[in-house]
């Protein structure tokens, strides 16, 4: 078992998904909005990045647009895509609550996924795009590129964490929790719940979208099967595990999940069937953990206690 590689992978994937988990934590853990479609921001960012930076199509490709713009333009474009997607899907859903909001956000994400899956002209549909460029690949010679990239992803996570924590600890964060606790009470003290909800969507989505760009840099692939509802559910499981409502808990949760996944992946299986069984057992285990943690919520109450005294 190559521990160095394992750690690097965990840090990289954990940081990227960690940003998405933090976004979900702001939306659900703090503002109480059940978003079952977070993967859509992630995917919107990833694919917009690809669209902007990919070189124009060759004869073998079916996609139509590749603007070959610099990496940083793609990155900012990804953030903008997240914002636009959040605006388009967030604004009409402002008056939806609970399961209705969950289903609508889910439906939006599935529509988007279906689009990237089926629309060949967008990004080659199911075939996807491979061999995508990694930023600064040639310039980084002083250290292993993977380590550099892991550090970059981690830095991104830390920045997002600091920004979100600052908001959570401010009156704004307090208003969000009030919104989550008792929306009616918030309204009767004269505050507009709709404005907070929309702002939370618009403010957090770009970060998830930027994480999508990071994901493209990491995998060098743009395959629709990487951007399914499974991502949404992994992030949800991580959130519940870590105790929803706390940014720190969210990160603990996602890193636990990623470590678990990577450990399973690192086991040297001798047969394909064994590997397949392991992957499925992993899925079952995650489901079981979700059930158990929702029932007994050990970390959640810890997180609440920490928040009150800290």
């Amino acid at each position: 078992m190559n521990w160095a590689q394992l750690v690097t992978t965990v840090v990289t994937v954990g940081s990227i998904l960690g940003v998405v988990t933090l976004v979900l934590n702001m939306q659900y853990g703090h503002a109480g909005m059940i978003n079952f479609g977070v993967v859509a921001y992630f995917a919107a960012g990833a694919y917009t990045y690809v669209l902007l930076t990919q070189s124009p199509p060759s004869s073998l490709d079916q996609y139509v647009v590749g603007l070959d713009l610099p990496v940083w333009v793609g990155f900012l474009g990804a953030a903008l895509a997240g914002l636009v997607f959040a605006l388009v899907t967030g604004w009409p859903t402002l008056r939806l609550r609970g399961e209705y909001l969950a289903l609508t956000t889910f439906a939006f994400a599935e529509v988007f996924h279906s689009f990237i899956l089926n629309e060949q002209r967008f990004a080659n549909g199911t075939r996807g795009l491979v061999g995508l460029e990694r930023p600064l690949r040639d310039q980084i010679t002083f250290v292993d590129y993977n380590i550099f990239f892991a550090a970059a992803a981690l830095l991104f996570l830390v920045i997002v964490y600091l920004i979100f924590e600052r908001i959570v600890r401010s009156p704004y964060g307090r208003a969000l929790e009030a919104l989550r606790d008792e929306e009616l009470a918030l309204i009767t003290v004269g505050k507009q719940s709709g404005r907070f909800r929309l702002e939370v969507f618009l403010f957090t989505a770009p970060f998830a979208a930027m994480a999508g760009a990071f994901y493209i840099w990491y995998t060098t692939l743009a395959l629709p099967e990487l951007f399914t509802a499974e991502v949404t559910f992994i992030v949800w499981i991580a959130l519940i595990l870590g105790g929803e409502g706390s940014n720190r808990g969210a990160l603990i949760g996602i890193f636990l999940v990623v470590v678990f996944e990577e450990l399973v992946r690192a086991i040297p299986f001798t047969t394909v069937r064994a590997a397949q069984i392991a992957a499925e057992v992993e899925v079952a285990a995650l489901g079981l953990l979700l059930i158990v943690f929702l029932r007994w919520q050990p970390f959640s109450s810890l997180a609440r206690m920490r928040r009150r005294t800290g």
Partner: protein
Amino acid sequence: MQSNQHAAWPVAGGLRHGANRGAIEPTGRIVRVTQLIVFGIGSGAFLLIATLGFALVRRVEGFLNIAHAELMSISAFITWYFNVKLGWHFLLAALVSIAVTALVALVIARLVYDPIKHLGPAILLISSVGVAFLLHGTTAAVVGVGIFGFEIPRLAAFSLGEVFVAPYRIVLLGLAAVCAVGLALFLNRTRTGKSIRAMSINRDLAASRGVDITAASRATWLVTGVLAGLGGVALGVLGTLTTDLAFGQILVILAVAIVAGLGSLYGVIVAAFIVGMAMDLSQLVLPGGYRPVIAFALVILVLLIRPQGLVGSRERAT
């Protein structure tokens, strides 16, 4: 005629099996439309069976059970096991499978859902995602990869004019009718059924009036399990099975339930056919892979314009 409708039934919602209906290409617009309507009726019949159990849980237990489709998957594979692996007659295998599925539904409810009922429908919804993961992982680990089919007589499609109709779909339509009527009779004529209805209106009030809530709840889960079991068997009859089928199903089931209006059972009867036909008729203008998108688009439309669906229930979405 190279049609092989048995294998071409795109039951899996198109996400991972973007099945193309193009195996049959009748000429003429009208024929094509009629054919798609016939398909749509078949889809609707299946969706009716699949969604009734889901809607029942929503109505009585108050939450959306995302794991419902996994129950169908379990039923399908248990049937396959008895039918193909052990060589039993299909009907016997189906019956046993349905019974097992009903029990599984009950056990899960007692172990997972009942203890956290007080946490509210949102938590139950998230929990059901966990159950879905658990069931999916277990089923897939046991079954493995591959495509599976039942050992049932292959009935060739017959034609009415230039439109082809598969016999199994007619059976399915009949089955759907039986389910709908059966459920209605059960809820309205039997004592358990009436208890269930009382409980779904107001749990505490029913309890104070002497209704045995635990028994009614148990009955609800068993009925749901039976319906899910039937749905799973139908899945296998209409097409081949893979372990990934369930996910695509639950999305469309959700769509039907929402169009019907969450909490409404009668609405499901109408909504199932609306969604089924919309999905199939969309083939006139969209490629096959977009079929499930129609379902989601309907969900979005309904939730934004008329969240209470066709038969608006008392609960408001806002």
